[in-house]
Each structure stands twice: as structure tokens, then as C-alpha cells.
């Protein structure tokens, strides 16, 4: 599940329209996502549907009909409700609105139609899926090869989680890139790419060891453009996939 991220291909599809309508870029939508997940998802949930009667991904809003209405609500809150004023700069509010629009498209296209069972999903996560071979979640797992999933349910939408499971290479976030390095003696190291410069790589190996490599000492190296995580598209049934995504959605902040 290394490629967990927003459904960016879908979001980009929206952006074409958004570009024409609002002049926003994929980067702005991604920025809007970051702000949303950091500030709004605490109440609205990463899928935007945690408050009864409010589903931000539906594209329908009780108190807003225009983008300006949405921006006003984000800026000023809704008096008499728990919705607080946001006090964001105008440019940031625009990115949040753009992201909310993108939620509608991505949710409609990518969200599985099946209802998942988190308990069964956990069995898949810890068993058949072998997810703990590369990931940690709460007190489970020891590998640092893939990103820590302890809070993935609080940070990503179901649609994004599903997409990353079936197509891990669709988007690899910079913090989750892997680099493969072959020393001159032929030994190979694969690890999370933490940092690099003209002369060196800094990586986190799967065993948690921080390592620095001089490029002059390497026979070859490659920053992997595809995720080392396999696609589970043909490995899990549609129901199993829904179960797994459902379980991932429950991972919200368990410390490890």
C-alpha cells in the first residue's frame, strides 16, 4: 500500500474542468487536500461524510449553492452550529473548495459499491494480504519499507485507499519513494528515499536503519518510479477489497 494517496488521475480529470472554471491546478487541489485533512477531516471525516446529513463529496450543500458561498462558510463558519470560522487566506480557501469539488468526482468513480466488513478486512490485512511485511499499523508490523498506516484512515478517503490497493503506482508520494542501490561488490539495498543530493542518498531500510550511500561507491542506482507493492486487483475479490478498504478506514491514530 505504498502508493496510498489521493486519486490523482481522477482529480486531474476534474481539474480540466476546474481549470476552465476556476483556474486551479493539480497542485492547488493537493494543497487543498492537505488543508482539508489537517483541519476539516477532524469533524467531517476524510470522506467528508462523518457529520450526519452532511456529505461534502455529494456536491450538494445545505448552506451553499455557489463557490463563493462555500468560501464564506469556510472563512466565517456557520453561526449556531459547530462549524467554526477558518480564518484562512483567500488563496487557501480556494484550494479547499477546489478539493471539495474533486471529492465528488473521485468518490463517484472510485468508491466501491460494496459494503466492507472491517473485521474481515483486518484478517486480510494481517493474513492473506501480507500487508504487515512492509507496513506498520499501530502495534502491528516492524517493517519501514512501506509507509506507516497507523493513521491512514484519518488521512485518506476510502476512494483513495481503494485506488492505492488496486493500483499502487498510480501516485507515489515523495515521502514514500523507494530507491534501489547496487554497491560495487554487488550487494543491493532497497529502502525509503529520505534525502539525496548530487553525491549521496539517505535512506531508511526496511529494518529501520538510517543509511547514507555515496553515489561514487554505487555501481548503479534507481529511484523507483513504480511502487514495489503489488496490485491487489486480481488477488482479492471485490468483497475482500471492500473489506480491506473498510478496515484501513478504521486505522485512525493508533500509536506505535
Amino acid at each position, binding site marked *: 500500500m505504498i502508493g496510498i494517496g489521493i486519486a490523482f488521475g481522477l482529480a486531474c480529470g476534474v481539474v480540466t474542468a476546474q481549470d476552465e472554471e476556476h483556474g486551479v491546478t493539480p497542485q492547488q487541489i493537493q494543497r487543498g487536500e492537505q488543508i482539508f485533512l489537517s483541519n476539516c477531516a477532524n469533524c467531517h471525516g476524510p470522506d467528508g461524510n462523518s457529520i450526519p446529513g452532511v456529505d461534502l463529496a455529494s456536491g450538494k450543500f445545505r448552506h451553499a449553492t455557489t463557490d463563493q458561498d462555500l468560501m464564506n462558510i469556510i472563512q466565517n463558519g456557520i453561526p449556531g452550529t459547530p462549524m467554526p470560522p477558518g480564518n484562512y487566506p483567500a488563496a487557501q480557501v480556494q484550494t479547499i473548495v477546489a478539493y471539495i469539488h474533486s471529492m465528488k468526482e473521485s468518490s463517484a468513480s472510485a468508491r466501491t459499491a460494496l459494503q466492507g466488513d472491517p473485521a474481515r478486512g483486518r484478517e486480510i490485512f494481517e493474513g492473506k494480504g*501480507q500487508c504487515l*511485511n*512492509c507496513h506498520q499499523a499501530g502495534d502491528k508490523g516492524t*517493517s*519501514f*519499507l512501506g509507509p*506507516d498506516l497507523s493513521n491512514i484512515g484519518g488521512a485518506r478517503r476510502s476512494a483513495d485507499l481503494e485506488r492505492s490497493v488496486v493500483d499502487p*503506482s498510480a501516485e507515489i508520494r515523495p515521502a514514500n519513494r523507494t530507491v*534501489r542501490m547496487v554497491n560495487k561488490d554487488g*550487494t*543491493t*539495498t*532497497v*529502502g525509503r528515499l*529520505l*534525502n539525496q*543530493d548530487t*553525491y*549521496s542518498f*539517505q535512506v*531508511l*531500510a*526496511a*529494518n*529501520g*536503519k*538510517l543509511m*547514507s550511500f555515496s553515489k561514487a561507491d554505487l555501481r548503479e542506482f534507481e529511484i*523507483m518510479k*513504480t*511502487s*514495489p507493492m*503489488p496490485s491487489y486487483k486480481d*488477488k482479492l475479490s471485490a468483497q475482500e477489497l471492500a473489506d480491506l478498504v473498510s478496515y484501513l478506514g478504521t486505522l485512525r491514530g493508533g*500509536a*506505535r
Partner: protein
Amino acid sequence: MIPHMSIKSRISCLIAMSALSLSAQVSFDRLLHADKEPQNWLTYSGTNTGQRYSLLTQITPENVKNLELQWVLQTRSPAEATSKYESTPLVVDGVMYTVQPPNVVVAVDAATGRVFWSYAYAPVPAARACCGRVNRGLAILGNTLFMGTIDGNLVAIDARDGHQIWKTPIGKPEAGYSVTVAPLVVKDKIITGPAGGEYGISGFLAAYDAATGKQAWKFDTIPSSADAPGHETWAGDSWKHGSGSIWTTGTFDPALNTIYWGVGNAAPDWNGDVRAGDNLYTSSVVALDADTGKLKWYYQFTPHDEFDFDSTQVPVIADINWKGSARKVLLFSNRNGIFYVLDRVTGEFLLGKPFVKVTWMDGFDDKGRPHRTLSPSPEGTVIYPNNQGGTNWYNPAFNPRTGLVYIPTWLDTYSVYTKRNDQYKEGNQFNGGGATHDVPALRPGANNNRLPEVGSGAIQAVDPQTGDVKWQFKMTDVTDSGVLTTASDLVFAGGREGYFYALDGRTGAMLWKGMVGGQVSAGPVTYAVNGKQYVSIPAGNVVFTYALRP
């Protein structure tokens, strides 16, 4: 991407390729024997003794002139004059961990300075610190780093990826509690306590479970219970806001199962009239059972402290020949201007001798109690040393080969100490007066246009057998730098002027200097990677690391 492989075989392959060497955890056994792996710097003081003495000898008095800069770590902070870089780095198996002020932890490759990760703790706005948004360093146990925060928390961070594991509140930031001290690991516990001596806090030293952050024991530096020994040394209810803060790291003797820790000043700082008595255990060193926190003994350096002298220096553990026989001692270079030797088994006072001009006392009785001569007054009293002291939090070093203690010193400076009546109000400073600073406590800028006689700095070498100053390396400006010494008899230290020096540990002769362009407020460390010895010093906003040119 590796095509045509099963999930299982692909994952197994990746794991095998990645696990070339096991990540070595820092066990407590390693910390106990940190002197046996001088390539690392595993604790605030290098070892549990507080000596800051390294067995690395690649750099010698003969070749130290060939030191050259290897790498530099620039930081975004400190953003303000009060955010001095006071953190002593840790070095663990080729990885350096340091804290940029106020609470940003950075892991870097110790050979190149390249960053692995950083962890930016965001203190709450209520955080307040009397004298700088600073942090003095980290502790490590297993794969976990421990850091105090200026908003009064202790946090545990995964040393592998900078992930926060837990956070435990130590004290309320709104009431002036902050944690600036580098924690000390003792067995499976993390020892720390709150700063806030100028806010009338209720000070304590406490042990926290390394795995969970749960408090295991607590020693009140001001006895709060009416029947507790020492409570009677506080008049009336003055103990309630008496401070006794913790802000410099202590030491641990495993053979005696005892930790030693210096305790901060009494509050209000400069008006002792409202807290008649000795005000235990402020401005003292306490010896505590490492498993329970129970007091074994104490020695109060400045009874009824009216100068804000604290006693927040590193209690250096040493086994020395004392008047013809082996003795387990504590070497304590106190802010009050006096160098002390104490028996660390019993707390017996063995020696006390000023290493700078001192006028607040003029001698000791048989038990080692100082005879007080001066106190602050409403109109102001000139007293030596100045409020920043003869030395301060900046760590000393002890070299068993030379037998000398190296003390960062403010030479012969005074303050005019004034007292006034203050009422305690939570979150406000509770000082009871003030002290003049002809040499500012915080360097206001890059310029020094003071008269030389106002005050200058030095690294001084003191013989613990006599308390005599054996040599003195003087600087025009004062120094807030810690000191490092090595088994090749070198001494490394810096100063406010922005120089970093290598001195001959036997004579004080300057053997090398590097310009670091900012004040040195941290302790230097030395370590080795792949057989190459490095010396590293934070200065200004930057960490500078040196090694011998090939």
C-alpha cells in the same frame, strides 16, 4: 518494479535486500558502557559520569592544526536572540541527532551532514521560558529518542523515522513550566524535570517509563508535606511557589545505584525575606536512589539563595586519589563562583574554593556551610559574581589523564542585586527584584564595545586536589560554551565571539581555532565514522563538523 514474481516472493526479496545489517538498538547496557564505544556520543554528557572525556585519539595536539571543515548543517532557527542553540548532539552508529531550538529534532548522517528526517514539535502559544526558547538535548534508549519541550511535555520519538510515539505532560505551560533539560536514561526510566525557576513553580525530578511515558517516581525538590524533612526550611507557605527547577542534566553511578542532580534557585529569586530559612533543596545537589527517587543525601551550595545562582551544573562523577587514598567524588563547578569536591557516597564536603572573584561569602564552617556576607537590598548591593555566575549551564569536562577540571568561566563580573516585594501570580515572573547585567545574559548583537574590565570569559583548568586554577585561556567576551576533552589531552570549547578552539589540556595553549561566526552556547562532541574522528559544535544557527584533512 520486479515483474513476474508472486506477492510473497517479491516482498521476501525486498525485505532480504533491505536488511543488510540489523539496526542496532541502544540498550541500557550500551549506555552504561558508553566509554567503550567512543565512536558514539550516546548521552548528553557522552557517558553517565558527566566527564565529557572521549577516548578517541586520532586528533592530537600535534595534528589538530590540520582540522578542516567537513560539513555544515544550516537551520531555520533560532529565529530570535533568545532561541540559542544549546543542544548537545547525540551520535549513534553514524547518525547524529540534534535539536534545533526550540524543539525541532533532526537526524543527519554524521559523516556528511545530510538530513535523514526532521521532527518539528509545535509548542502551544502559552509556552513561556524566562531566558530563552532553548533545548539542551536528547536521550536515547532502544530505538526511541526522548525530548523535553518548552511547553512542558516529554515526548518520545522513533529514532528511525521521526515518528512521535507518546507525549507526557510534565507541567502546565500557562504556569511557567517548561522542559529544557536533556533527559537522562536510567535503566528503563527517563529522568527529567521542569524549568520555570522564575515563575514560582513547584519543582521536581521524576522518572517516566520509557515505553509508556507513565510516571514511575517523583522527587519534590521542595518538600511539600508538612512532615517531610526540609519542609521546615521554608517560612509559612513560601514553599508553595518556591521553584527548585530542573534544567541541566544529572549523572548516574551504577555501582551506588544513585543519580546526582543539581537543583535550581528559590523563588522569588532576589527577595529572600518572604521565605526565611535555607529553602531546601534549592541551589543544592541531591543524591537519589535510582529506582525509587528517595533522597540519600544532599548538599546545599547556596543556602537561602538570594542571587538566582541555582545549582544547575553537571555533577561530574570521578574516582580520584584524595589525600592518599581512592575516593568516589563529585566535582561541581557552581554558578556561585566556587568549585566543590564532595564525597559522592556520603555527601561529605571535601573542598570548596572560588574560581572567580566571590564576595557573597567569605568561607566555610567545618560542615561546608558557607558564611554569608552580602545580600540584595532595596537600594542595590554590588556582589560578585554577577547574576549569570562564574559559570552556568555550560558543561565542564574532567580529564582523568591530566587530572584537571575544565570550566567555562565568566571572569570577575559583578551585578547590583536589588530586592523588592512581588506577589505570586500564576504565569507571571516571580522574581522579587533584579540584578544588573553589564555583560548581558543574552548577547544582543554581534558587537562588543564594552570596557574589558566589565567582564571577560575564559576556559579555566582547576586541580580538584587543591581547587587551584592551573591555567586560564582568556577571551575578550564571555563564553556560554560547553567543554570537551579527549584522551590525547585536548580541550575543545568556544565562546560568544564565534571562535571554536582546540587547547592543550595540560597548558591551555591554543593549538587551533576555527571561526564559526556565531555564539557557541552548546557543548562540543567528538565521534568517529568508518575510523575517522570528527569534532562537532553547534554555533549560532549552525552545526559545524571538523576532521583532519587527509
